[in-house]
């Protein structure tokens, strides 16, 4: 019980700290931040329920007024901005990532985590993000999707990284990787 609590709090903090790392600019000029890597890791390491709770805790602190979203954003203004869907999608994305990782328990852990990160951290997150953007900007879903496609290659790199990191953690601390414990 205590362990679940501290793990959830730690991964909420990890999502925040990864968002503080200055963005890396890809070859074609699109900045990528490590924040969504934190969301993926919450799911792949903690599993669906705890991972979703970690992302929910992070989201709650952000909305209460801590500048923890990448770029130092936060506060209630997030709810009215075009990127609202991505922020609100974090808990769903972490949950889906963990759900897939847990379901693929027969696959090697790195592969299962990578697949989970692609489905949850990219599929589910973009579904929420694009829907929010199309609602706020008043454009169709397809038009909103066009605005964010440039960020998908960066997120694919992050999903691969999430798979590799989860495998490494599973080798280093098998008991702490709760999605496989």
């Amino acid at each position, binding site marked *: *019980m*205590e*362990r*679940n*609590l*501290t*793990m*959830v*709090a*730690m*991964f*909420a*903090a*990890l999502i*925040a*700290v990864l968002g*503080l*790392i200055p963005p890396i600019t890809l070859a074609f000029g699109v900045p990528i931040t*490590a924040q969504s*890597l934190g969301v993926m*890791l919450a799911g792949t*390491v903690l599993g669906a329920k705890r991972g979703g709770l970690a992302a929910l*805790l*992070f989201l*709650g*602190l952000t909305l*209460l*007024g*801590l*500048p*923890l979203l990448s*770029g130092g*954003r*936060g*506060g*209630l*203004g*997030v*709810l*009215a*901005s*075009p990127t609202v869907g991505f922020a609100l999608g974090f808990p769903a994305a972490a949950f889906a990532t963990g759900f897939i990782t847990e379901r693929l328990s027969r696959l090697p852990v790195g592969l299962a985590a990578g697949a989970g990160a692609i489905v949850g951290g990219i599929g589910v997150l973009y579904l929420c993000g694009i829907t929010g953007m199309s609602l*706020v*900007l*008043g*454009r169709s879903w397809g*038009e909103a999707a066009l*605005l964010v496609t440039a960020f998908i290659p960066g997120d694919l790199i992050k999903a691969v*990284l999430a798979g590799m*990191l989860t495998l*490494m*953690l599973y080798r*280093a*601390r098998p008991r*702490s990787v709760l999605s496989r414990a």
Partner: protein
Amino acid sequence: MLSLTAPHRTRAHGWPAGAKLGALACATILLFALDSPAAMAGAFAATLALYLAGGGTFARAGLRRLWPLWPFVAILLAWHGIEDNLALGTLLALRLVTAVALATLVTMTTPLSDMIALVQWLATPLRRLGLNTRPAALALALVLRFVPSLTMAAGRLRQSWRARSARKGPSWRILGPLAVHALDDAEQVALALRARGGLIEGTTSDGT
């Protein structure tokens, strides 16, 4: 830790958080009911006046927080400009900026402690139903402690990586050790919590 509350105190800092949130909700609903660009421009001007009422430094800090919206304003104007409906584009862009500005205003004038107190008050019915909200409160406090400690750990790892490597700049290579550090820290804090009696408060703990 850094927060988005403006350090410079305004009169609105003392107002009850619940009232400010209620007013924000009403104002936002009203904003989405307006459909003439002139009325929307009026709402935008009124919001700007609220920022200026907080003083020059306050207004500048607030406007800096709205700056990340500019690409979306440009997209809305360009898109509707191409479709020859600039009036609608202006209306949507003004509404977007005004809605975010109003919400940011509430965040800037409400200290984190007030927000947490409000959430605790809102959770009162849950406690009446017998739900224990203490773990949630403890988790929140733990995150506030973990963020600076994890940031420091990342800084140390980056320094030692630089000392060993000829390449400059942080590398994704520190992510692995950082994640291991996070897991170990969480395990140790869990152990410390359990040694001090843990979360048990009348309920049984399964010891996992």
